[in-house]
């Protein structure tokens, strides 16, 4: 029993440790450039949309499938949103709402074919990928639409109002520090609460040293990020957005009946059906949800670029899928976590960012990313086979 707990934790730590190791390697290669406050800020901004997509993609991957259409939906929703705001003068919050509904509808479209008609998701989403890209070119007349107003770009490029303290030449944002303190207290509170419930039920608890190591790693990452952000321009709005999304989806997948149903469907669809799970419904909502998150990513991307282009989001589906697999999800479905997918996305982000900083071309970057994906999945599968 005890031995098993350690193994499970090691696997989760493994990914995080790999991420930290990669960060340190590039820290040395780039002579410290990748740890500057500005670069940490960029790291979050640049990867926010891939993280948002990876969170939704994980649910598709859990069912044993993928959604190839997300990159196109990102472009389509970003494009439509820009048109509404710039050409029709629609109020920005309303434009966001309408575009999110459009995203949900694209998800429902795919979900309908997959769930109700039983068409393989690969085919359906390959089709939505082509259709979405084509429609984007039609809508934008193959032109870039911009520049978008500041109130729009805030969501992708803006910051929460900073409370500057400290010396004038090197101000520190108090808000970021307060957030870090609150987060620290919350993490410790939940950890203690979980230990208490486990004791109440008389379950075996994880050895204390493991809990302490886990907390130290989490705290170190948290404070590292927050201090860096505090010395730059404070909390990016998009960071708040992705934290909320990660929190919601982590809760859904790990703590709710709906989440468990997705895992069960991916593990064995026939057994899930005979256990009273409406597998069609699960499929439908998983793909509908992917549409919703694609729309959010579309808004964030267009906001960050301050414009919408028909080529936007090209290849994002592959980044999101790769993030899930690097994060330990199984291609056959039924295995994977939201946190894993987020770490997978961050690993790719750190790689991209680090290689750019040391001046490697995007061509080489692709080769390296391919190697990392192949390596991560190979190590995962080979070690699993050994254990069996």
């Amino acid at each position, binding site marked *: *029993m005890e031995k*098993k707990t350690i193994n499970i934790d090691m696997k989760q730590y493994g990914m995080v440790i790999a991420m930290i190791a990669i960060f340190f390697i590039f820290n040395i290669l780039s002579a410290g450039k990748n740890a500057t406050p500005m670069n940490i800020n960029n790291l979050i901004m640049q990867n926010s949309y891939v993280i948002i997509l990876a969170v939704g993609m994980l649910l598709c991957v859990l069912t044993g499938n993928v959604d190839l259409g997300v990159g196109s939906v990102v472009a389509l929703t970003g494009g439509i949103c820009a048109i509404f705001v710039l050409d029709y003068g629609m109020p920005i919050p309303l434009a966001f709402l309408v575009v999110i509904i459009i995203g949900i509808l694209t998800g429902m479209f795919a979900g309908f074919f997959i769930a109700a008609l039983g068409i393989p998701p690969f085919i359906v989403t390959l089709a939505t990928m082509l259709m979405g890209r084509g429609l984007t070119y039609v809508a934008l007349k193959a032109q870039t639409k911009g520049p978008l107003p500041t109130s729009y770009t805030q969501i992708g490029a803006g910051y929460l109002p900073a409370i500057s303290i400290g010396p004038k030449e090197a101000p520190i944002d108090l808000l970021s520090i307060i957030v870090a303190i609150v987060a620290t207290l919350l993490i410790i509170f939940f950890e203690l609460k979980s230990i208490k*419930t*486990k004791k109440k*039920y008389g*379950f075996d608890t994880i050895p204390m040293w493991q809990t302490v190591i886990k907390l130290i790693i989490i705290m170190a990452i948290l404070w590292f990020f927050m201090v860096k952000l505090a010395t730059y321009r404070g909390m990016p709005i998009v960071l708040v957005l992705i934290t909320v999304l990660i929190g919601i989806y982590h809760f859904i997948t790990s*703590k*709710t*009946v*709906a*989440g*468990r149903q997705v*895992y*069960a469907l991916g*593990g*064995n669809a*026939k*057994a*899930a*059906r*005979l*256990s*009273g*799970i*409406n597998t069609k419904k699960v499929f439908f909502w998983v793909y509908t949800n992917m549409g919703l998150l694609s729309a959010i990513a579309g808004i964030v991307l267009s906001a960050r670029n301050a414009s919408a282009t028909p080529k936007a989001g090209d290849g994002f589906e592959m980044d999101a899928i790769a993030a899930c697999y690097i994060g330990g999800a*199984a291609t056959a479905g*039924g*295995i994977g976590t939201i946190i894993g997918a987020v770490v997978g996305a961050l690993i790719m982000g750190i790689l991209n960012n680090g290689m750019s900083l040391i001046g490697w071309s995007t061509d080489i970057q692709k080769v390296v990313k391919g190697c990392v994906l192949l390596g991560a999945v190979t190590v995962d599968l080979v070690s699993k086979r050994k254990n*069996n």
Partner: protein
Amino acid sequence: MSDIILEMNHITKEFSGVKALDDVNLKVKRGEIHALCGENGAGKSTLMNVLSGVYTYGSYSGDIIYNGKACQFHSIKDSESKGIVIIHQELALSPYLSIAENIFIGNEVTSAKGVIDWTKTRQKAKEMLAKVGLENENINTPVNSLGVGKQQLIEIVKALAKKVDLLILDEPTAALNDEESKQLLEIMLQLKKQGITCIIISHKLSELSYVADSITVIRDGKTIETMNKETDEFTEDRIIKGMVGRELTNLYPARESNIGDVMVEVNNWNVYHPDDEHRQIIKNVSFQVRAGEIVGFAGLMGAGRTELAMSLFGKAYGQKITGEFKKKGEVLHLNNVREAIKNKIAYVSEDRKNFGLILIDDIKQNMTLAALREYFSKKGVVNKNEEIVTAKKFKKLINVKANSIEQTVGSLSGGNQQKVVLAKWMITEPDVLILDEPTRGIDVGAKYEIYCIINDLAKAGKAIIFISSEMPEIIGMCDRVYVLNEGKIAGELDKEDLSQEKIMKCIVTHNGKENN
């Protein structure tokens, strides 16, 4: 040549420190049918995998002497080239290829330079099929359109095409009905006449005593004894004693029936095939089950028992379903499995790996899956702690042998997997349990434990529908039996009237009536 074709001496094989085989010895005479018996996990399949080279030379200790020579097999190809062919429990046919293509798969009939000679292939396939009495099959039919029994025979033909001297059959009759099994056994006897030596692994002791010349019993990775037809008498009691290491005084635990009111009443139930709306699978079936009663459904494979059960379980099978389904006098309209579960009906599938369990998930999650929404959640949020408590309770209650409730069910033995499936449905607190082949492919000891669980459930006042292809089991367990044949009820037998002969007679006379 000596009359011993194969000797395996002092074979020991370990898996990460656990001895799966411990100094096993096996001697097989040329031209005999040699049976291997043992509980699941005793090491039969491991031994055969050592022999066929699945576990390569060096990964085990001990010698294999075949045709008087010591052998070192590094792959299945090595052992096949010496004439040792193994037919695994899971069929290894390619479903969309034709019979002829399957027979020569990996062993193609080629002309010069590796081009397949289709004329010769077909000719040869026809000849080979005649050997197993399938000369009337069209060799161009894809194998997935054949029944399991015929597919098993195709596997044998495939082995014969490889010039086999020693044929190993791993539970060849597990998925076959009585008639098909009989046919297969006859073919084995024919092969013996042609000089082919066979090793057969099986749980069906009656079959073994029918075909085998010698029987070797293995228990916990050790050879217990080898019996010969000439010197020993093959009795089930003796074999079972060897397998489990104790005398099973009674295969079926005693139970005092305490039968209550009518719990389930089904009237004029009709079901059509899900893909073919003109093919009626269940025809006007009516029956009753009382609280605390175990009612058996006997019949040949394809009689429609599973289809009947699944169609009752929230229309999980079939289309155009009509008829009345009453529970405690109330008519139920179940449109999906969820509604069936809510109405306290449970169905334990005959195929636990494909329909019963999520093999990659742990014991706990499998146990609570069907009851998750009703019993382990509040507003859709799972209470994981309650889950752990319940899973621990049931693991203990029905004696699931595992390190912890966090162990994946894929790593459990068949018997323990079946217990997990039973626990999953017991946790839904059903009034009606439909058990479809609840003891298929599990060993004698675990069977007994499962019978005890079923008896306890009956004692607790549940209505139990017990579907089984093993007639002794039906006779030993049930208060009453319906015989199903070709989608119709062919007869109803009370406990006092139950015998294998009576059930068979029921089917045969029903067939006769149908044909006139």
